[in-house]
């Protein structure tokens, strides 16, 4: 049931049967349904309401584990954002999936996942009115950052994130692809990512400043 053409676009409502078809791209790594086991990715039974990185015994990336214990729970909004672009929500996730750009496809596949969660009645059938994946006009990703400005701004980052890329307790941010860096910072800025320190730091960075930081850290010696 897709509401289209209205003056204000209503968010799509997913169709689980269509979602079953869309899920085929997920099924390369994820099992779902009776007896589903962890494969390359964790099984997806009961994924709604589960803490990210929450299946005992599955080897998650440090990034996903960190996201989970710092507050990421799989609900409609977070799953929608994750499926749209995994790296926007979780740095260094092992989920090697480029993302599903089509909001309607995502709604379908989420409706399908919903069938296999414990209390589907508690899970909204329609997605929220304000989908939470970072809203990034294409021109934001086109901004050419100034590495010299980035170097000055980076001095704020290196209080915690080591410039040499060593990490323990706080992740490395050196040598990230520029787009990943920009998307991740906007995800903090738009409060999709949870860590409060990073929400605070990113919250006051302009688009230009984020681009400059990304440019600096991408090529740091």
């Amino acid at each position, binding site marked *: 049931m897709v509401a289209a053409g209205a003056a204000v676009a209503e968010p799509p409502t997913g169709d689980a049967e269509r979602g079953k078809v869309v899920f085929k791209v997920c099924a390369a790594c994820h099992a779902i349904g009776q007896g589903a086991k962890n494969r390359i990715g964790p099984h997806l039974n009961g994924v709604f309401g589960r803490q990210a990185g929450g299946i005992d015994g599955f080897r998650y990336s440090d990034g996903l584990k960190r996201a989970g214990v710092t507050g990421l729970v799989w609900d409609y909004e977070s799953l929608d954002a994750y499926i749209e672009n995994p790296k926007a929500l979780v740095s260094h996730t092992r989920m090697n999936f480029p993302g599903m750009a089509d909001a309607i496809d995502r709604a379908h596949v989420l409706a399908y996942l919903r069938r296999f969660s414990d209390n589907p009645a508690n899970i909204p059938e329609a997605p929220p009115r304000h989908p939470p994946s970072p809203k990034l006009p294409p021109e934001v990703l086109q901004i050419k950052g100034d590495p010299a400005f980035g170097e000055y701004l980076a001095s704020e980052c290196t209080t915690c994130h080591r410039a040499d890329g060593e990490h323990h307790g706080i992740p490395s941010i050196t040598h990230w692809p520029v787009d990943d860096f920009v998307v991740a910072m906007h995800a903090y800025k738009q409060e999709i990512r949870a860590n*409060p320190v990073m929400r605070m730091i990113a919250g006051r960075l302009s688009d230009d400043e984020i681009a400059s930081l990304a440019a600096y850290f991408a090529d740091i010696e």
Partner: protein
Amino acid sequence: MMNRRTFLGTTAAVAALLAAPPVLGAARPKVVVIGGGAGGATAARYIAKDSKGAIDVTLIEPTRTYYTCFFSNLYLGGFREFDSLGHTYGALASQHGINVVHDWAVGVDRDARTVTLAGGDTLAYDALVVSPGIDFVEGSVPGWSVTSQNKMPHAYKAGSQTQLLKAQIEAMEDGGTYVMIAPPNPYRCPPGPYERISMVAHMLKQTKPSSKILIFDPKDKFSKMALFQDGWQRHYPGMVEWVGGDFGAIDEVRPDSMEVLVNGDTIKAAVCNVIPAMKAGTVAARAGLTNDQGWCPIVPNTMQSRLDERVYVLGDATLNGDMPKSAFSANSQAKVCAMAVRHALTGSTLFPAKYANTCWSLIGTDDGVKVGASYEPEAEKIAKTSGFISQVGEPADLRQRTYEESIGWYAGITADIFS
């Protein structure tokens, strides 16, 4: 004064003629930094690193191994080795060409633009960075003075005082009383005394569980109060008693008999940790940079002293507005200062100042909390723009992550200061 300045000017001009390469035609500008802690060493490092040799940087710090006050509570709690708090200045000299002088700065002549060292040398500067940390206000705790610090340690400058306090805790008998005299505002590291209480309680609970901890605090409330009080109840029930406000102001301590007189009672302390009222490190007052409360007012967008545009003041010694006295703050201020100094001396770009702070505290094993904020310069002060704080009732794995984050921060900031 005029003679001296004229004399120095002549000397500098002659020196430039004799020594400077003709292409430059002038000597490298000189920056002297007093204090090798989170403010001073960071400023020295960033000025030297980012000017790529165009500025001559001298760092004056009396100790060869600097023990960080931040994380020293974790040593008291048995979560860290003492040696892990120590940092040396070798990399600042070898990697960044900083002239590191291990001596005390005992005087500053702002007219002549010179710093005098205890060893007798005099150093000239074009810009001076003063980051002297804190000293204690004499008489703020009746009966206590710095000469009693071996009986009643403050352990609020890290090093032998920290080791002494730890030894006293270890020597306590089960059932003894640990008394802390907490400081009035403003003071270094707002959550520090209460993290220390948590760490002492952690030690006592394991080895001397009948012991008590009493805090006398002249304040009505303190940093992360709800988080600490909740943690003390969960981890150390019945052990910690905080007496604040009017009842928290003590009458006197007696170091010789280890007694604390308060509200008409005399309390016998096994350990008495006196954290007196604070002021900017002494050299700041000698340099004439302090106000009548003993702190150094600064210009919010550059960290210049309000009293001298060639002098910059950093960290705990400053009266800056909303930023707390913490290593994170000092490190953040040092980067703004370094940029402003380079701009003043070499004409490099002056970017807008940004400041931030986060303070992590450990309450018990794997139970970390944090508070933080971002700040922007306004005309009158550095003003808080947004902030966050950990919440009571957070799940254990989040608290563990917060603790792990603090360990990462320690590794990060000490590399950012000393490497």
